[in-house]
Each structure stands twice: as C-alpha cells, then as structure tokens.
C-alpha cells in the first residue's frame, strides 16, 4: 500500500515536472494600455498561445517612458524576453543599455510609409502626431504648425511633458523639425496659449474631452476611435501643411533571454496578418504589415500627412537634453 502510494507520488511528480518543462514562458514588457482589456494584448496572447504551446506573460508598465527606465533599472537581471512599445525616439537610449539583440529579419517589405531600417528594433505599428480639435468649439482649426505657433490670438491647447511622455517628446521633435534653430523662439511664442502641460497622454486627452481647451496633442488616428466606437465626427485632427511628426512603435528581444527561439517566433508573429489585424481598433494606430481586410471605415478620411517628419534617433538621443533644456527655459518664463 505504502509503496503504491510512493510510486503514485513519483509518477505524479514526474508528470508535473514534464508538464512544467513543456510550457515555455515568454515574458514581454510593454505599456499598460497595450495589455488592458481594451488593448490588443488579450487577443494577441490568446492567438500566440494557441499556436506556440507556450505561456505568454505580459508585464505592463505605465507607458513607453517607464518601459525604457525599467530596462535601464533592471539591466542583466531583467526577466524580459522581449520589450514591446518603445518608440523610435527612444531606440538609441535603449540600445545603449547593451541588453538588446538583433532581430535578424528582413523588414524591407513592410508597409510602413516611413523609411525604417534597424537591425535591432522591429516596428509593429505607427502613427502621426496631430492636434485634435473639437469641431463644435473650434471652427477654424490651424492649418500648419507655423500658423498654430504664430497666431498669437489662436486657441488654447493642451500638450504633454517631453520629460515624462512619448507624445510630449514627439511634439518637442516636431517643433524642432519645423522650426530648426528657431525652435526655442517658437516655444516662447506658443507658451502663453498652452493651457497646461500634463505628464501623459491620458490626462491631456481627458481634460480636452471635458472641454478645458479646444486643441490637444494626440494622433491623426484619434478621430477613428470616436467614429468607430462612439459614432461621432465631432473630434477631428487638424491637417498641417508643414508636416506631421511620426511615431513608430517598436519591439526588440533581449540578448540574455533564455528563450531566443520563442522570442524570434514572437517577433515574426508580430508582422503576421493576424497580429496586424488586431492593431487598428485596439491600439488605434496604423498596422505596419498587411491586414486581411482593408482598415475599418472609421479610418478612411483620416488626415494623410503631406509630409512625414522623423528625426534620426541618434540625433534625438544626443540632442534631447539640450532641446529639453531649451523647452524648459521657454516655458518657465
């Protein structure tokens, strides 16, 4: 009887171990809106797990900025296999941690309308920054960044802080791209009309929807959400003739990850039709790869930038401090 019990236990233990060894676990660090119940995370986890016979675990951090600082904080102790959700402006800083490995994929055939070449970071979606306005309170939306800055009687706007948020940093670079050396003057000119500078996108957009200001820094795709989910055309993006700054969201695998094969598999999966299908109506960004069907109707008629702006990530990393200092000085007068 006793030995039977012993044998039973041994078999059971072996089974548990076998089951445990079989399911590999892939850990992905990303930002919280990606994995929230409304984001692409849950669907993507399901699809990948159905196929890979593994467990996919998301670790959700506040946003892209938190993602980078977590990577810097954890260093070689990081249990991440993949980091997903950095934007193109942060790639150089992320690369300097020395933690990331090359993806080894050919990305020349991506449907990205912006030139992107990088052996470490693989894009999974992209979008353009834009000022979104409330068409009920603002009849004459600005038609260019120059017009927005120079019209001293223009509408008030809400922006994000470039020290804490990726859209905020995006705007800093947008102003840089358009005004170049005169960026500091542009900020001084704009400053009196900036209602408030928030720490992230959510706070800014929330205040905007409450009617605090008629203009907010967001994305060209924001109106698609309101159309698709709320069925309203009230919120629109202002088309700027001097261009829109692009945001490319990227992922990379960690060099010390013990699950290299699985990580590679996920990166490849990221560019697949199934993955890309999920992106538009959950992350409210444009897919970088082919989707099985054309984009939902809400996406037609969105602002198409006549000029796409994107500064070299290397330049951004080297100049960021200087430019933020300029911004600080212009706005704290």
């Amino acid at each position, binding site marked *: 009887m006793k030995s039977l019990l012993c044998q039973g236990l041994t078999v059971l233990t072996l089974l548990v171990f076998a089951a445990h060894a079989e399911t590999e676990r892939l850990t992905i660090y990303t930002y919280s809106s990606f994995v929230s119940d409304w984001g692409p995370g849950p669907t993507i986890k399901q699809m990948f797990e159905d196929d890979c016979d593994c467990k996919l675990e*998301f*670790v959700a951090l506040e946003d892209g900025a938190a993602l980078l*600082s977590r990577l*810097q904080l954890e260093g070689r102790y990081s249990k991440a296999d993949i980091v997903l959700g950095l934007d193109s402006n942060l790639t150089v800083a992320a690369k300097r941690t020395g933690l990331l490995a090359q993806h080894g994929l050919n990305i020349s055939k991506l449907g990205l309308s912006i030139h992107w070449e990088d052996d470490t970071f693989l894009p999974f979606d992209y979008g353009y920054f834009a000022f979104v306005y409330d068409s009920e309170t603002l009849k004459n939306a600005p038609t260019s960044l120059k017009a927005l800055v120079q019209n001293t009687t223009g509408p008030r706007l809400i922006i994000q802080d470039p020290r804490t948020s990726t859209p905020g940093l995006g705007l800093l670079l947008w102003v840089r791209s358009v005004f170049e050396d005169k960026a500091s003057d542009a900020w001084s000119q704009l400053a009196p009309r900036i*209602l408030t500078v928030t720490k992230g996108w959510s*706070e800014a957009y929330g205040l905007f929807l409450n009617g605090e200001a008629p203009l907010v820094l967001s994305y060209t795709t924001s109106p698609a959400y309101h159309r698709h*989910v709320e069925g309203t055309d009230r919120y629109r993006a202002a088309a700027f003739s001097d261009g829109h700054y692009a945001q490319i969201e990227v992922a990379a695998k960690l060099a010390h990850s013990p699950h290299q094969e699985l990580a590679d598999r996920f990166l490849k999966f990221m560019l697949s039709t199934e993955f890309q299908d999920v992106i538009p109506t959950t992350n409210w960004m444009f897919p970088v790869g082919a989707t099985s069907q054309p984009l939902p109707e809400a996406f037609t008629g969105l602002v198409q930038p006549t000029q796409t702006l994107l500064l070299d990530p290397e330049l951004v990393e080297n100049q960021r401090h200087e430019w933020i200092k300029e911004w600080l000085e212009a706005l*704290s*007068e």
Partner: protein
Amino acid sequence: MARSSKRIRPGFGEIIRVCWPGIVSSLFLILIIGGTFSALLSTSSSTKIIDDFGNSTYLRKVLVFTLWQAGLSTLISVGIGVLVARAFARQQSLTGRRLILQLLGLPIVTPVIVAVLGITAVYGQSGILRENLQLLGFSWPGNFYGLPGILVAHVFFNLPLSIRMLLPAWDRIPSENWRLAAHLGMNSRQLFLWLEWPALTSVLAGTAGIVFLLCFSSFAVVLVLGGGPSTTTIEVAIYQALRFDFDPSRAASLAIVQLTICTIVILSLHRWMRVQPISSGLATTSRYRPDEKLWKYRCLDFFLIALTTSFVALPLLAIVYAGITGPLTHVLLDSRLWAAAGRSAGIALAAATTALTLAMGLLFTSRVLLFQFRNRSSSSALQILGSITFAVPPMVIGTGLFIILLPMGVVFDAAVLVIILVNAILVLPYIMRTVGPALLDAGHRYDRLCHQLDLKGWNRLRFVEWPVIRQPLGFSMALCATLSIGDMGVAALFDTSGVITLPVLLYHRFGAYRFDEAAVTALVLIILCALVFLIVDRGIGKWRS
C-alpha cells in the same frame, strides 16, 4: 510613594526589555528609508546635487516654488479654517451641523486623481463655475492651470482637514470662562482674543505643520493642475528624474533636500506644538456664548459655512453626476471592477494594519522613554521619526526597494508586499499624530496609578489605554486605509497588469479613450473609500471592550 523626578539611567538589558517595540519599529523605518536612499544613490558614483542647486536656476526655481505654493496653501487653508471652525463652534444648534461636518470629511478621504476630475469640472478653464460667472457678466481671463489650480485643489483637501483639526480646540475652553465672559460683557472680538485664541494656538501649529508638509510634497495635484514646468514641485522633479532621464541618484538627492526641509519644519514646530488629535468635533457641551444669538454673527457664520460647504460639495457632486450619467450598468456589471475593488480594499487594510503596528511600537516606547526613563529627547526622536515619513517620496522608496530586491529575483512576487509597505510608511504620520496625544494623555493620567496597582501588559492595554485610544485609533486607521485605496504611484511602478487595483483600472480606461467608463469607476472608487472609512472608523471606534 513619590518617584524620583531624576533622570533614570537604566541598564542596557533593561532598555532592550522595555523598549524593544520602538527599537524594532525605528530600526525597520531607518533601514527601509536609509537603504532605499542609498540604493538609489549607489547607481551613480558622484552626487552632484549641491552643484545642481548652485548652478541650475531651474532647480532653484523649483525649490522656491515648492516653498511658495506650500506656504500660500497653508496660509489660506488654515486661515479660512480658523474662521469657519469658529463659525461651527458658535453655531452649535445649527440644523444639519453634524451632517455638514461629516460631508466636510469627504475630501480628506477622496483619492487625489478623482478629486482633480471634479475640481476641473467645476473650477476649471471651462468649468461650471466659470461658465456661470460668464453668463452673469463676470469674466476672469486668467489661466486656471498653474498656481490658481494648485491652490484651489490644496484648499479643497486641506480646508476641511484644518476645520476638523481646529474645531476640538473650542471644546477645551471651560464653560466657566464663557460664563465669566458673559458677565464681563465681552464682545465677539474680545471673546476671540481672550478665550478662543489662547485655546487655538496649541492646535494651530500642529495643523499648519501637517498642511504644510502635505502641500510641500504634493504630487498628483501639481502634475495635473500645475500647468507646466514653471510650477514644478520637488516631488514632481523627483518623478521626472525617474522617467526619460532615468537618474536615480539625482532623484535620491532631491528627496534628501525635501526630507531635510521637512525635518527642519517639523523640528521647529515640535518645539511649540502640542500634538493634537484630529477628532470629529461633534461633542456638544452645553455652554453659553454671549455672541451666539446675535443675528449679525449668525448671518456671517451661515454665510461662511454655506460657502465652505458648496466649495467642497460642488466638485464631489460633479464626480457623482459624471458617474451616474456614464455607462453605469456596463461598468458595474463588469466583474473586473469588483475584483479590483476587492484588491484595493485588501491592500488598503493591510497597509493600515502595518502602519498601526509600526506606530504602536514607536508610540508605546516613546511613552516609556518619557515616563519611565525621563528621556525627553529620545522620546521626541521616535515621535519625529514616525511623523517625517510624509516627506519621503513613495517613488523613491518604491524604486529603491526595487533595486534592492532585483538581484534576489523576487521583485515580481514581492510587488504586493512592496505596495503595502510603501503605503504603510506614507500614512504612518496620521496614526502617530492622532493616537500619540491620546496615549500620552492616558500616560499622564494613569501611569502612576497603574504602577501602584501593578497593572501592566495586556490588562493595562485593555482597561486603561484601549478606552482612551479607541476613537482616534479608529479614525486614523480609517484615514490610512482610504488613502491607500486611492494610491496609484506605487502600484504603477511595478506591473500594472499584475496588481490591478481600482486606480490602475481607472488609468487603463483613461489610456483606452474610455473616459466615460472612467467616470463611473471614479464614482465607485469614491464610494469604496467612504465605505471603508465608515466601516473601519465605526468598527474600531465603537468597539465594546
């Protein structure tokens, strides 16, 4: 048998035997705070904060602004607080007085992120108030975001707190004094000068101190209503240092500056501060105020009370309105909401209990040091240690613990524990300030008697201390629990998918454009806070022993 008033020099073993709770609590606090600070500092070899403050006009501006807004907020909150508390004290028989005082307790327990939504809806750039004023022909061209927004929010939180801390001072004025004053025919001004002001001064310093510290280390309010880089506080600068710049040693240095300033403030207040309990001030002792029935003062008091009540109630009503007009059933039927609410309540109760344990260790030992060993300075040191944690930035402790736990590979498993611990440290001062005085009071009154009767240990706690500290204990535990429910900062530092508390869920909805659903979540959050407050406050406060 009178005991010698000489300072007693006990042996080492004796100290350990009697003072171990305080030693354990204080070592724990010092280890956590010191450890996390040095963990952050160790991430870079040189600390250049002195240089930073010397050279950077920006940092100097930040420091000046932090002091300026905290000073102004304190002046307004406590200044108006005195006037309104006096109105409440004078109008003892006002209908609904009790209810109004309870309503004024709500901002104290409202999570900052929720309150800010209500405040902008009412007082914001296109808020209800401004629009109505415009309809009436008044226009105020200035920007709400910036100093005005920060002040409005700080007064929203701290005016009710001041009123509730100041009001008990009136109960301490003996009724003979009132009678005497009536005989002498004192007018209202003389009453204030000769009766009320002397009673007030003892609580005023303590109240101003707490309000100043809360405003000095204000974070969420400044981030949303601050308007931009010209209105940054040190706490916000610490947060920024931990973002793109990712410079933990800079964050730690800034935190040290903040801690130093706050310690100086606490120390200087401690010299003439008799720490006072924050009680509800509902006691109505019969007394005759000569100026109570004068209609001139009645009108003034009603006006003050009505104004304060509407100032506080409007933002709360805005939150309720946004909540009930939102997709109510859709959000309420979502099981994730209730799971998050349960998680929040669990974390909050655990944090409050942890804070209580730490506080009791410090308080009992502080009292033993004072009464048994006559060592006033060590006794005060323990009190100050427990009160200073207001000024320790949660981001710094959180990040520091993260750095320490990382090489051990337990960061993710320990996330909930860290959240509880950081919250416990943050709310500790409330218990110290509320239960501390009551405990001292019991000591003053019964210490000798207990020694004579040889009453000690569990029995003394049960029969002597418990009846005295029960009420302040219930109140401060309730306060701690509610404040922990609303906490977002620490939870976000770890993994927001691992520990989805109610505030995290609120942010997830924000992040997914679901602002209408977020409004409902905010309403649930505020109701949860009020419920937990009531249950803990009544549960402990009214316990029969």
